[in-house]
């Protein structure tokens, strides 16, 4: 796994925060946290390392919308999930010239969340009709927006509810054993 090790080192040099994730529980191998200014360097690095872009999307949390990038690789099992908070100006640099596939994903994220991808060649609605181009349907209602730490995975044993004593597999199960049957 020295390829992955090298990748982690290079990502940390961006500099980005990189953490190994438990694939069995989370479905991806690496979690990367970026500043919006690092997004393009991040994309360039992974383009060089022959990754492909699975999707770009966003999640509406307080204080700033988080942009999600998921990438994977054809030659080795390494799925990366990167998160970047949009800047104070509500924008994040476009990577459509690095990964051509990002063009549509960014257009979709723009119409659904209102995030501006600066440098995008054609930031027009993709799926929504012209008359509802300003709807931003995936933004949460004001009273439903959660702070970012309310959706973060909690380390094992840190969960509040009466969890199962760490099973051999998947110790983060939140189900109550009493309720079974």
């Amino acid at each position, binding site marked *: 796994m020295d390829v992955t090790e090298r990748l982690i080192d290079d990502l940390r040099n961006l500099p980005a925060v990189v953490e190994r994730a438990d694939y*069995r529980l989370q*479905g991806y191998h690496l979690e990367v946290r970026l500043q919006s200014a690092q997004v393009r360097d991040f994309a360039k690095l992974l383009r060089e390392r022959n990754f492909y872009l699975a999707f770009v999307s966003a999640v*509406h949390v307080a204080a700033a919308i988080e942009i999600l990038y998921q990438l994977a690789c054809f030659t080795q099992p390494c799925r990366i999930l990167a998160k970047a908070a949009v800047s104070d100006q509500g924008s994040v640099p476009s990577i459509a010239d690095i990964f051509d596939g990002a063009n549509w994903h960014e257009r979709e994220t723009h119409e659904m969340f209102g995030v501006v991808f600066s440098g995008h060649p054609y930031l027009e609605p993709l799926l*929504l009709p012209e008359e509802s181009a300003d709807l931003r349907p995936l933004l949460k209602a004001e009273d439903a927006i959660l702070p970012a730490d309310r959706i973060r*995975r909690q380390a094992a044993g840190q969960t509040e509810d009466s969890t199962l004593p760490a099973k051999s597999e998947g110790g983060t*199960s939140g*189900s109550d054993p009493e309720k079974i049957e």
Partner: protein
Amino acid sequence: MTTNNGNEKRQGFYLNMGPQHPSTHGVLRVLLEMDGEYVLEAEPVLGYGHRIQEKMGESRPWKGFMPNTSRLDYVGALICTHGYIGLIERMTGIEAPLRAEYIRVITSELNRISSHLLWLGAFLLDLGAFTPIMYTFDDREQILDILEDVTGSRLTYCYFRVGGVNRDIDATFIAKTRAFIERLRSRFRIYHDLVTTNIIFIKRVQDIVHLTPDMAMRYGITGPLLRSTGVGYDIRKSEPYSVYADFDFEVPVGTSGDCLEVYLVRLEEMEQSLRIIEQALDRLPDGPHLAKTPKKLPLPQGDASFSVEAARGEFTYYLVSDGSEVPYRLKIRSPCFSNLSILPELCRDMLLSDLVMVLGTLDLVIPEIDR
């Protein structure tokens, strides 16, 4: 309309293909800038089938979204559902009994074959060959009958459950599936005689476009289109889910990435699916088909992703939970969305009739693009 692109003066007219056009296989519109018979620019216009599925997924308990998952990729609905169920099981830590996992694989692979058969017939119909679709639909009908007996529906299956499958398979299902395997193997010869060696077909599809691994990386192309370029990437192998790691099967690849090779890859994939089904039937374990699960099942706080190899490529669900039963964010990544996005680059300066052929090769399912 006159356009002036740099030093080359190109004079074109606009042609609207779709949204109601038989060869777009659904409500896809392609805005074409044409010069005579040649396509200067092809711009897909999406959204005619947009139902804001992701919002629906975020506004009800996760259970309520299960039927929706089979309405994204309705041609390969079981595989699509597999991803969602797999994601919920991953988050909650619930495991399906081994028998259920085998049943999931058997039915998913049957569904993959039916999807490829539909593609085969429709693709050749696009090329003007009317006969093959009669044969492929005859074969596909057998699968629909088999799956109808066990799932209760013919197309938009809602059969998988968290912790297993809705209904156990019986001896009749096994006998019918085995008979179908025999039958389809004998039909492959007919397809090869009728299509693969047909010189008109070969001239129509060979060497028109060449996909490359680099293009695939730039656009995020997955599935048979990617494998036709020689990259043996298959989520069932690279990130094995369910019990796929237990089976011996190959990932067919091409070399040059032209439409003929995409065709050959898809045909060979059907044979590989048959092999998986055979092995699964031979080794089908006894036991329950559904684990006992709590009635209320909140998703633990945090995020998780689950990818499956659908008939057209990587299908990924990404879910963010705030600890309740209602997902806070559900992102659906569908293969056709990325696979279609290459069309403008792929079809530049191409004959219109070839564009129809390339669109057919992409094997588009519009509801999973529009979502």
